[in-house]
């Protein structure tokens, strides 16, 4: 071998050695992401992230709840809205899976955040920290919403299956912890939200005395919103509202109660025929994006940064009124409801004499007060009213019989949680 060849061989060896020494060259980093270690220096952002994770998907939940209930109908082009409108939902076709996934993650993140706070702040400081209060509230709300949405879920990472009632019981406990922590941390806004949410969970479990106790503690004027911003916008506006995508609109059963107008207006109160300011709507004769259906738009949320009330003092009053009605105190219940009506300039109901009338008044007032807040489906489910409400439509495309009254649990959890049977047909789905 001549000298050139020898040197060539040396070059190869040099190349291989150079490659071996290049470990540093092969190291990169993503400047757009935090690592787990970074979060120890960003505890407020962690707490905000937990609470924000509950809020940012609430808008989608409101729309999906409205479609499966009798609030919205599909007026666009997307089967993702057409299916729940027509009561077509199953384990493969679950409109709320994204919401459920997000809230399941929020539960984990809340627990992980608490662990982090203890590590960074120490147990004592963490126990009374506003940050802990915030994440406990976020975690409790996530559990509550899961209990309200699906007939089963899980409360802990890859946990065992829990029924909706077990989830609500867990939510009650977590919200109680959040209430206690918020009070010791001096954060009354978190405390009120936790207590209002606990009132709701107690109501949904049938613990009316507990619900009233909590609801009564909430002062007038209190509202806890799902907050939206320019980065995380309100999709109720973007996807279903006039001048936007108009993919869903108010169901045709409500159309006779809405006037055509070039200006936004209100649905008429069925009792008085007066505009009910709790139900802002807008119909100017426009056809929706399916090129066929008149678009009756909700007008409660107009800007895509508008917040959605999750909990409020008027809602708490409704809990009190319903508890009275269930105890036979129709006068008391009607009085509370009429106060709410008077606040928007509507005349009061006469005190009913029979439970059915009382129940229908409560149902309507809840519809009006909680318009486009996601509560209508919950009310139809717990009242066993889904079949009756849809049978009254006599609509072959929207039969009452067999219409789901809650959602199946998210299939991603069911499939990938090792503590759960992969057979999705084993998951529950309550129907009318």
């Amino acid at each position, binding site marked *: 071998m001549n000298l*050139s060849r020898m*040197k*060539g061989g*040396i*070059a*190869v060896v*040099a*190349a*291989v050695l*150079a*490659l071996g020494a*290049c470990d540093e*060259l*092969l*190291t*990169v980093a*993503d400047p*757009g*992401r*935090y690592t*787990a270690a*970074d*979060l120890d220096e*960003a505890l*407020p*952002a962690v707490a*905000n*992230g937990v*609470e*924000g994770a509950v*809020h*940012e998907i609430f808008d989608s939940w409101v729309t999906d709840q409205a479609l499966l209930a009798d609030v919205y109908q599909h007026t666009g*082009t997307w089967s993702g809205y057409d299916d729940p409108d027509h009561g077509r939902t199953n384990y*493969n076709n679950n409109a709320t899976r994204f919401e459920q996934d997000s809230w399941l*993650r929020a*539960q*984990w*993140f809340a627990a*992980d955040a608490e662990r982090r706070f203890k590590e960074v702040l120490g147990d004592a400081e963490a126990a009374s920290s506003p940050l802990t209060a915030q994440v406990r509230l976020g975690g409790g709300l996530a559990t509550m919403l899961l209990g309200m949405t699906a007939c089963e879920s*899980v409360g*802990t*990472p890859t946990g065992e299956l829990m029924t909706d009632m077990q989830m609500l019981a867990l939510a009650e406990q977590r919200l109680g912890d959040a209430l206690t922590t918020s009070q010791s941390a001096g954060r009354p806004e978190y405390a009120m939200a936790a207590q209002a949410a606990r009132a709701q969970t107690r109501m949904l479990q049938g613990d009316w005395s507990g619900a009233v106790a909590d609801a009564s503690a909430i002062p007038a004027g209190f509202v806890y919103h799902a*907050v939206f*911003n320019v*980065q*995380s916008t309100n999709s109720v506006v*973007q996807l279903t509202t006039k*001048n*936007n*995508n108009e993919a869903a609109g108010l169901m045709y059963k409500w159309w006779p109660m809405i006037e055509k107008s070039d200006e936004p207006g209100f649905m008429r109160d069925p009792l008085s025929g007066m505009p009910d300011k709790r139900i802002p709507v807008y119909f100017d004769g426009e*056809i929706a994006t*399916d*090129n*066929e259906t008149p678009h009756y738009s909700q007008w409660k949320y107009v800007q*895509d940064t508008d917040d959605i009330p999750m909990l409020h003092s008027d809602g708490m009053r409704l809990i009190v009124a319903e508890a009275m009605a269930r105890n036979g105190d129709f006068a008391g219940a009607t009085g509370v409801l009429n106060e709410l009506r008077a606040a928007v300039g509507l005349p009061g109901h006469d005190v009913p004499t029979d439970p059915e009338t009382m129940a229908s008044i409560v149902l309507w007032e809840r519809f009006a007060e909680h318009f486009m807040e996601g509560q209508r489906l919950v009310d139809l489910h717990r009242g066993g009213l889904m079949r009756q409400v849809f049978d009254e439509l006599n609509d072959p495309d929207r039969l009452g019989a067999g219409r789901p009254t809650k959602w199946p649990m998210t299939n*991603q*959890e069911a*499939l*990938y949680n090792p503590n759960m049977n*992969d057979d999705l047909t084993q998951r529950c789905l309550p129907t009318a």
Partner: protein
Amino acid sequence: MNFRYHPTQGARPLSLLAVVAAMGFLLPAQVAAQNGSVTGQVTAATTGQPINGAQVTIMDSSLGVLSNISGRFLVNNVPAGTHTVQVVYVGYGTATQEVVVPPGGAATADFALEVSAVAMDELIVTGTAGAVERRKLGTSAASLNVTDVAEVTPLSDFSQTLEGRIPGVRSIGTVGGVGAGRELRIRGTDSFSLSQRPVIYIDGVRVDSRQREWGSGVPGTGFSTTCCAFSGGAGEDRLSDLNPDEIDRVEVLKGPAASTLYGSEASGGVIQIFTKRGRSNSPANFALTVNAGFNRHRENFPTSLRSNFQGPDGTYAWDPNETLIENGLINSYDLTVDGGGEAVTYFVSGGFSFEEGSVKPNDQKRANLRVNLNWTAGENLTIAVNSGYVRNRIYSLQSGNNWLGIYTNALLTNPLNATAEEPYGGGLDVNVADAQAINTYSDADRWTGGVTLNYNPSPDFTHRATIGLDAVNDQKTRYMPFGRNYTYIGRQGERNIGYRNARQFTAEYVGNLNYTLPDWAGGLAGNLAFGSQGYWDITSFSMSTGRGFAGEGVTTVSGAALTLGAEAFEEDVNLGAFLQNRFDFNNLFITAAVRMDGNSAFGENYGFQVYPKADVAYNLSDDMLPGLISSAKVRGAVGMAGKAPGAFDQFQTYVPNTVLDDLAGVRPNNPGNDVIEPEVKIEYEGGLELGLWNDRIGVDATYWHATTQNALLGIPLPPSEGFSSSKRQNAGSILNKGIEVAMNTTVLDRSSFRWSTGVNFEWIHNEILDLGDASFPDSLPVYGADGSLLRWDQYMRLGGYWVGLPIFERTTRVITGWDPATRRHSRSAYNTYVGNEQPSTLASFSNDFAIGQSLRVAVQFRGEWGAIMSNSDRGYGVRQLAYDEYLELLASDGSATPASDSLLDRFRLVYPVDKRDHIRLQEVSINYALPEGLMSAIGLGRSSITLAGYNLHWWDDCHCPDPNQQYRGGDDFSTSPFLGIPQPRRFLVSFRTRF
């Protein structure tokens, strides 16, 4: 002579260390004294026409040139004595002559080449570590002489150049906007998530070849624009930057059996583009090409009945076939000059093209400038410098799955809603005129360049080093004017700006040593190649949005009431080294190689990846062949190549987000995987290359079988574990296998008429073999034609993938019944498998007729079979009461009928499934060589005029405008036709001249 190597400022040293180490040892060579030259002319035997670009080589030396436009050549510095001169040109048989070069004098050798469909002496460079004759290759490397193709068929797009010309390469147009993404994929789909585009090199420099630069926003940030990227999904294709007039030839490695030496980026194949170069001892040769023509859609949009219907104010609805389709003008000018002296050759090219789409506004203005220099710096040293610049400004078409799409809003309209203001009928609530008022631009500056040093101290010991950079600065903008209605941004107007700056640095060193073992070792000849290669990719994205102008007049982001922004960054570094040895046993050639790679995207705890390969080629000697067969080569190869994971997949991360009242928040994002590996693909192939009837017919057949192992899958985590992204794991396995056959022949070869024809055929099978431990058993129902449930088939499933089905499986619900009482259909509760969205069989049929000395006619058909589509476009069009299929069922007064209601009900429940099978008349070119006497009288050389048509017609049963329609352009994992505007037909007149 020693020389120093200066790395480019800013480039990482990467394997340059190795380059420097290697080059520093190189020794000067002795300059020979008494040299002479060889000169001559190369012509076609039957026609006597000169052959341009034939490769003339002085055997046993590194000397060689290309023949010029007149077929003439001159090789200087040939040592005095007897030499063998070899001439190789694709399409003709190799010819050799022995010459005696006198000291200081010239020897003459003229060559008249016979037509041949076999090219065993063609040199292949890509993937072989050095130039190797095809006869020695055990793989099915393909090459395409673009210069030759362009002689007959005007080319305006690089991807179009490949269309139907190489079996195994699927290059098709999928959307109608000029400059928009195209499908380019080799040998099927080999990954669940990583890019399917082959890696593309230009003159040894790795280049950006993205078909979509971003989707709905800044990657990974969650920041998106109003909808579906600035132009609606298809995006702009960076391959549209290339000017085909600069390209000399292309080499294609179809898979790991051939591409192992490219390591962790090559499992999807490699395409190397060689740009044109000057010729030594040649005067300046100028060439001018002028193209003019137009794009025009075929008038087959499913809306021809629209104009029979009136809206509420009496307006007859507009039919987009009549009102939307226009002639889109095409003009292009390319001027090149090449030539050279003894030491320096040059190729300089300047081009400008302007092209409009058939649906407007949509156009592309592209200016290219290329300078390629070759300097023979010494007897053993050549330096090649390549520099290509392009400015590519595309006025993008608003199209696709996009609320702002022009086609969308013109077609998805109910004609009964037509008004004077909205004569199409209203569409998706955006007036077509408003959609057409949107200004959407992609404005790219790009420079691609490199320096290649060839140092050959002897013909048997050579060194090549290349460094290069591909730099793309792309600005995308969109402006929605104040006062017009754009759904949920209302009438307030919006401005978007996005920047993508991409830098790809390449460095490579390759050494080649030809040797002969001592007699005691068998006297075997062989070649040892070694080298290293590295690349460093950096891409940064930024985007800003301004929404809400006070009025007309201000169009900047900062002039809006609300401003938003985001940025992202990606970085990927790869370093590799390889060693290859080939033994030559007379007609038997055996090659073995190994490449080792490290990559920044590999998991921190993974380490390096090793890719081995081996191939064998055996050329049967004449005495072994029956009379019919004139030449035969049997080959086989096995090789491995990889594909690196996403740049940051290995890291566990939390993503920042804005929550509550504009507060900073974080949320769990990527669970990370610190042992993530590259996907590896092991491919074996066997092939037969035959020459029949004295090489008049060439047949090249290959069977290949490739298994992707460690395919990256997003393993979904239970949401209760917190992280929103699935965990990227090497868990899957994918099978691709196929048969490729290419047959070429010159049916007739007379001085007055020649007919050459070629058939390419490809069959491909794609199947998921394994989805890892996270998959679970699940069942898919199988329904009969009457909707009855026949059985359940069980598969292992993960996410939307099923073991045993292809990656592009389509599962959907199907109609299972019809209730005449309620007049409603019923649908299956579960999805059923209805077919593969990628074709299993592809074929093309090309003919080239030369009539007399002046006229050539080229015709190409191509076809695809076996693919289906979930025809969302058709279903959507009916659901929107818009398409002919629905309108033709309406009563004469426009009212619904039971039949129209039935159709509507059906398509509200399911999307129809249609076949994509089709045959397409892809190209017709008529080329007329103008009389040379006339041309020379006005000072011009060889000149021709060509009339050409592309994408002229197709025969299908797809219930759609075009079975190749894909709204996301060349997206790797979406084939949905949904509102993707089809490819237009294209008509050109081209004038080419030389002077």
